[in-house]
Each structure stands twice: as C-alpha cells, then as structure tokens.
C-alpha cells in the first residue's frame, strides 16, 4: 500500500511545468510572420489558415507531448505533420487525407508506450469505447434536433466533399489536439492537484475559451451560446470519460462523433 510503504512525495510541481516555451515561441513567431506576409500580399490568404492550424493545434499537441514527458522531437514532428496536412488540405481534392498523418504519428507513439501519461496506449475496454460513442451520439442527436428547431439549420448531405474535409481536419487536428491537451494533459494534471470537479471545470472552461477565440467559429450570438452549451457539455462528459475509463479513446470518439454531426449541419 502506497501510504504505508512509499515515502510521501513532496507536493507536485507547477501546473504548467515542462511547457515547451521555445517551440511555442517559434510557432507564435511563424504565425505572426505569416500574418504579416499575408497582410503585405506576399503570401496568399489561405497561408494564414495553414499557419493558424499549424501553430494553434501544433502548440496544443506539442505541449501535451511535453507534459507527458515525450521527447521534444516528437512534438516537432507532429507540428511538421500538421503544417504539411494543412498545406495539402488547402490545395483541395484528396489533400485532406494528409490529416491522417498526425493521428498516425500519435498512434505510433502510443503503441510504443510513450503517451501513457495522456491516457493513450493502454488497452481500452469495448464498454468504454461504446460509452464514448453513445455519449457523442446523444450529444450529436440533441444538437441536430435543437439546431433544426431553433436556428433553422439542418442536416445537409449535398456538400459531402466539404464535410469529409472538415471531418478530416477534426480527426487530424481539431479533436486530436483538443482532447490530447485539454483532457489528456490539462485535466490529467489538474486532477492530481485538486478534486475532479475543480479539474473538470478548469479543463472544460479552457476548452470552451479555446473555441470562443477560434477565428473559424461563426460569431453570431445564437451560435456562440450554442457552442458554449454543447462544448461545455462535451468537455465535462469527456473529462468524466477519461476519469472513468482511464483512457483518452472514449473521449476522442465522443468528440469525433459530435463534430462529425456538427459538420453535417447547414442552412438552406
């Protein structure tokens, strides 16, 4: 028993210890430079999107890796893969398939046991996976029904290439980075210092704020309220899923199902 036969460790270090500040600085600098070059007309406007995806999601993933004590090279690799995927996706066509790069890299690291600190790599039960899928499905169906009844938007299947590209973005960048950082890293660290409620509140609030400052989110008040409502629910559910199943996979699945449903919505 730990309380009996292990020396009582000193209080855990700072919440943001091990953050790869140098890499984050480089990413910020890159994004700022790109923005400046786009403003000057040197680069095409979609370069800003590529830089934003690379810097934003790359920062989240690289920080999550660093907090999980994965070698810094892995963070650089995932940033590079994100940049490549965003660039290829911007070209259109099958470029979005490049978003499979980051999850494959994450899967490879997890298989080698390097992401155990994020809740990836350990076997996960079918029950946990199904619970994650059901949670995502419940939230998605609620979103679809509510959205169609209140905002006048509904499921549209006439823009499948765009939907698939968006789902690819979610798989390779949006959901992967958010779950790895806000649940696998931030919530995981916070729950070692405070109660579940405090940790889940911190992680979920940060998660919601991250989407509120996302330039890709439409800025109408109805959509913002809806985003806060559903993202808060999704964040809290995913915190509980990680806590309950001790794996990030159910949370990843529920978020993927939810975002896939969200991508199918359209007006007209």
């Amino acid at each position, binding site marked *: *028993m*730990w*309380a009996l*036969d292990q020396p009582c460790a000193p209080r855990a270090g700072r919440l943001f210890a091990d953050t790869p500040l140098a890499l984050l600085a480089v990413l910020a600098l890159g994004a700022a430079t790109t923005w400046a070059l786009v403003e000057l007309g040197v680069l095409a406007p979609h370069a800003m999107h590529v830089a934003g995806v690379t810097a934003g999601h790359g920062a989240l993933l690289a920080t999550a890796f660093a907090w999980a004590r994965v070698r810094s090279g892995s963070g650089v690799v995932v940033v590079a893969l994100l940049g490549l995927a965003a660039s290829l996706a911007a070209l259109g066509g099958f470029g979005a398939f490049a978003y499979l790069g980051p999850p494959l890299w994450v899967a490879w690291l997890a298989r080698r046991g390097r992401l155990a600190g994020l809740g990836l790599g350990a076997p996960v039960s079918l029950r946990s996976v199904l619970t994650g899928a059901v949670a995502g499905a419940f939230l998605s169906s*609620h979103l679809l029904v*509510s959205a169609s009844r209140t905002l006048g938007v509904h499921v549209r299947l006439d823009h499948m290439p765009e939907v698939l590209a968006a789902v690819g973005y979610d798989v390779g960048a949006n959901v992967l980075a958010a779950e790895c950082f806000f649940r696998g890293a931030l919530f995981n660290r916070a729950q070692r210092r405070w*109660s579940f409620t405090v940790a889940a509140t911190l992680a979920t609030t940060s998660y919601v704020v991250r989407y509120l400052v996302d330039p890709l989110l439409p800025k109408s008040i109805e959509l913002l309220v809806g985003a806060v409502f559903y993202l808060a629910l999704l964040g809290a559910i995913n915190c509980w899923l990680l806590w309950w199943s001790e794996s990030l996979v159910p949370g990843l699945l529920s978020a993927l199902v939810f975002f896939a449903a969200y991508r199918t919505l359209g007006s007209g």
Partner: protein
Amino acid sequence: MAAALAAVTALIALDGAGPASLFRHAYLVPVVVAALRFGAPGGALAAGAAVLLSAPFVLPEIERSGLTPDAAEGLVTFAVLGIVGTLSGALRTRVGRHRRRYETLVALQRALADEATLDVALTRLRAALAGRLGFDDLVLVARDGARLVVAGGDRVVPGSLVARVLDSGIPELVWDAGRDVRSRRAFAAPLVAGGQAIGVLAVERKGEIPAEERAALEALGAHVGLALENARLASRQRLFAAELAEKVKAARQELEELDRAKSTFVAIASHELRTPLTALQGFSELLALRRLPPEEVSRLAGIMRREAKRLGRIVSDLLDLSRIERGLDPALCRIPLAVEPAIVATVDLFRQGTASHPIAITCEPSLPHVDADPDALERILTNLLSNAIKYSPLGSVVRVGGRALGGAVAIEVADAGRGIPAEALGRIFEPYYRAPDAAGTTHGTGIGLAVVKALVEAHGGAVRVESAPVIGTRVTVILPAFHGPVP
C-alpha cells in the same frame, strides 16, 4: 432509465402540445427512480438528461413567441426536475451514508467484542472495515508500546504518509498517490484516544475521497481509537482479575497450610510437653512413695533436673515464638560474653545427658567476646546441638567451633547426618515447618530453628545453613563481637 426518458420524450413529441404537454410530468418518474437508486449523482444526471431532452420543446417556443405561459411551464418543469432530482438524490446519498456509518460502528464493536491481542483485534477491525468503506486498500496501524502493529501491511516506512500522521496526529490527504491515469487518492486519519494519536487509519482509492467522507473517516478514527483503548483496558482488567484470583488462591493455600501446621504443632507440642511432664510426675511419685538409697535418689534427681530443663526450654521457645508471631523481638539482656566457655558449658550438658554422639569443640585462640544475651546464646547452641544429634547417626561426631569473622564471631555446628533435602532448605526457618523426611522419624516441634533465627537476628547477626545429602549439615551463626573493654 435512459429508455424511460426517451419514451417520455417520444410521448411529448407525439402529443404535439409542445412545452405544456402533460406528459412532461412523467419525467419525474425516471428522475426520482435514478435518485433513489444511485443517489445524488444519479438524480442530478437523470434530471440533466430530462432537461436536455425536453429543451428542444421549450427553447424553440421561447425563440418563436417569447416567454409564453406554455414556455414558462416548460421552464418551471426544468426547475422542478433539477430540484427534485438533486434534492432526492442528495437525501438518498445522505441516508445511505448514515446507514453505512452506523453499520460500520456496529461491525467495529462486534470485531472488538471478544478478548483478543492487539494484533488480532486490528486484523479483525480491518476485515470488518475493508468490506464496508468501499476503498481499494485500507490499513490500520496502532502503537503497542515501542512496537507498531500493522494490519494490512508489513511495516511502516519512515517518511510515509502513515508515519507522518502517526507523528503529527493530524489527518492528511494526498491527491496523487501513484502513476495511474485516474489519480489515486490516499487519506490517513489518526486513531485518537485520550487526546493522543495511538494509531492511524489509512485508505486509498482510485478516485475522489470527498471532504464529507474524509470527515466521516476522521470520526471513525476517533471511534476506532476509543474502541481499541477500551479493548486494551478491558484486557488489562481481565488480566488483573486473573492475577488477583491467583494471589487469593495462593494466600488461601498458604493459610490452609499454616492452619494444618499449627494443628500438627499443637499435637506435637502436647506430646513434647507431656514426655518430660510424665517423667517428672513418675520420678517425683517414686521419690515420694519409696525409700530409696542415696545413689538412686541422686540419679533420679538428675533425670528430673534434665527433664525440667527440657520442659523449660520448650516453654521458652514457645514464648519466643509467640513474640515473633506478634512481630516483637525476643527480650534480650546483652553483655560481653566469652564464646568458648559458653560452648563448653552447653556441650557439657549434652555430654552428661547422652553419650551417643562424641562432640568435638574447635575454637580459635583469643576469640573475641560477643555482645549477646547468655541465656539466648545457650538456647541457640542447645537447639543447634540438639538438631545435630537428632539427625545424625549414632556414633558420628558432632563438631562445634568458633572463629573470628571480621568484626563478628562465627559459631559453627556441623554433623555428619543425612542432610536436608534441597527443596526443604529454604523453609527450615519457618515456624512449624519440618522437613518431610524428618517429620515421620524424629521428635520435634518444628519451632527450634525459627527461634534460633529470631534470636540471632535480634542480636543483629545472621544464620546460614549448608547441607549436602549423606555428607551432613553445617549451621553457622554469626554474632557481633563486643568491641569495648571487657569488665
């Protein structure tokens, strides 16, 4: 529960009455059932799910027409569901917690009901608590003097959580005990008795140990501490009672033995007194009734004198014994006394009376005088010589001697008799005691050596006995020498 919620939602949708549908009240059924079944989390979750499911009926109404009476009813339904689910769940959780607490206390009392050592009691307690408290691991540690008794582990590592709480007496929570994804909490509460930490109750769980549960564990620690202390006191009391009973039994046996010895003594003393009395009576009658030649009269008078002296000695011994038993020292009149003449005089008396044993006297030259009562010294020597003659074979030599010993004089009387058994050696100075092998073969009251010891100690001296089977017995009396000028 999920199916029930879905069914109610379907009924509301089919009803077409929107947020004012009467079916909305049916949400209360699964919410209350979930609250009663799963407590606060179940009630809150079910209420949340019900609100989520009914929201698509209420919110569009508000968006379309503002806060209409129907929409208001829907909002009230939200509130009612939330309040009912949360409150009934919280009450259910609290009731369950109280029930578990009382059950735990009863189990605790049962575990300590029997007489048991601290190790066994702790193991039983742990078994009783482990199944009820719902933790992954539980350990109980209690102080037993300098030793720590551990139930649920091997030993307490210095610096561990248990060791810290044992030292400080303050409960402590560790948020992250281990490396699991779901954080493992460890909590240790002191076992308190008499205001001091007599041990520690430590628990571990993958997951939360809420503040209310920690408070309950602290209270349980106080209960366990008190129960352990009570068990310890009860055990000590039982031990004390057993010891007392043993002592009472021993004292009773001693009294019974003393009573038996006194009865035996009365019988023996009567016999011992009767013998010289009979002789005196017989010879005096003979002298009174017959006319005897002078030589015969002289012989009979000598016998009567010896028997009278013997009678006098027995009576003196009895008087001394009586004083000893009343806690008084024998009355002494101490003067400077030459040892060798006193020995010679006593030996002469024995030589006149019996020629059965040759008596050899060996005294150091210029032996110092002793500070003693002459009559007491004569009785000491008489008793010792009488015993030596009584318990040694006919014809064997009895040796009497005196020698200087520091500031004292040692007088030794040695015989070549059968010796005193080792088991009897420690008791020969007790009044009325006679060694088992002596009791059936020789006459005696069993008070001679007791009187010798009392007389010697009244002089500030000491007496010791050395005896070996077949070789014989030597009694040494040490009396203080007289240091002043001899008159």
